[in-house]
């Protein structure tokens, strides 16, 4: 049993100062040490996601594309970003599809959800993969599963209504997670809207 150290103003201030300084030094150095591996891991994860949502390709060209305003949501803007990251994929010099990194701020958890969606040149969704979400475990997290994501593959948003059935669309929502399902639809609509306007300006040639 250690005997207790008597508390005086000096030693209390000193102890707390030393502990916080040591803790900040430790955190600072760990942050610096892990900065590069974390960036590398994120880049690898992004590339893995692109490979998942598009047919095989040999080179990639990334650019930022402005999100056009949604005419049905006047004055609401685009969330907290004004552009999406487009990854154009080429096979033997021919564009075989575009992976769009899209997002939604309307999920159940305040954390933004991020989705990588692969469009073929004609606008058909090749497949989608959720790259970031913090939804309720066991409920909203099902948005990452094949059962929910699978329904988007091979659909063209020009004819396939990207709203949950409850809102008059054609997307089967996750049981008890309508909000999460709506957020996914919101993200996909934003991606398609941006893809469409990009195409109009002569995107995929």
């Amino acid at each position: 049993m250690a005997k207790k150290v008597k508390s005086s103003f000096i030693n209390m201030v000193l102890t707390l100062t030393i502990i916080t300084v040591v803790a900040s030094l430790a955190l600072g150095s760990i942050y610096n040490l892990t900065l590069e591996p974390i960036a590398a891991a994120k880049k690898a994860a992004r590339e893995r996601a692109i490979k998942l949502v598009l047919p095989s390709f040999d080179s990639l060209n990334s650019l930022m594309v402005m999100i056009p305003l949604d005419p049905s949501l006047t004055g609401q803007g685009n969330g907290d970003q004004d552009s999406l990251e487009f990854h154009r994929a080429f096979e033997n010099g021919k564009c075989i599809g575009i992976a769009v990194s899209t997002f939604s701020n309307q999920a159940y958890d305040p954390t933004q959800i991020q989705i990588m969606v692969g469009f073929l040149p004609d606008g058909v969704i090749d497949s989608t993969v959720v790259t970031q979400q913090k939804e309720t475990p066991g409920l909203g997290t099902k948005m990452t599963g094949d059962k929910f994501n699978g329904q988007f593959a091979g659909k063209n948003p020009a004819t396939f209504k990207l709203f949950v059935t409850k809102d008059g669309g054609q997307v089967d929502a996750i049981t008890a997670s309508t909000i999460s399902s709506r957020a996914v639809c919101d993200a996909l609509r934003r991606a398609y809207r941006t893809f469409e306007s990009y195409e109009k300006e002569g995107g995929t040639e």
Partner: protein
Amino acid sequence: MNQWQNFTKGFIKENAVFVLLLGLCPTLAVTSSAINGLGMGLATTFVLVASNMVVTSVKSFIPDKVRIPSFIVIIASFVTIVELVMQAYTPTLFDTLGIFIPLIVVNCLVLGRAEGFASKQSFLSSMIDGLGMGLGFTFALTLLGSVREMLGNGSIFDVKFATGDAILIFILQPGAFIVLGYLIALINKLRKTT
């Protein structure tokens, strides 16, 4: 009390969730499936062992009146370090457990063991206490998660054993309270008879 008893007390006799009722917030929040319970439990165990070891090493330098803020800074630093290191070197594991890591800071089990045990005991005892309490916590969370997943989703560790609709309420928040209540009653019954 020998070290074996020190290690095993966390499982039933002084189980954090069923008996001490410590750390209930993450317990109720994340146990919607067995794998979530297991993940949260293991992450907490790691932080518990590490913070117990540090707290017991510095206990003789810390004035009594500022011990709690000191312990909290130590625990929070550990949690942040764990989060950064996992993100950098085990990104797949971080994808599964990542959302639970920040929750560990507010888990009163960790502070409770630092204050109630590690600040008074030897290095070895504190380490074993952290491991025992942590694994006991893991056991409780996995049990709770398994029961909720079986009733609410008809599966265990993501392996389906029943088809058709399950009782969804067990996966929702009220289910956590209902299952926890029955499990506490069961464990109390077991403790009385043995």
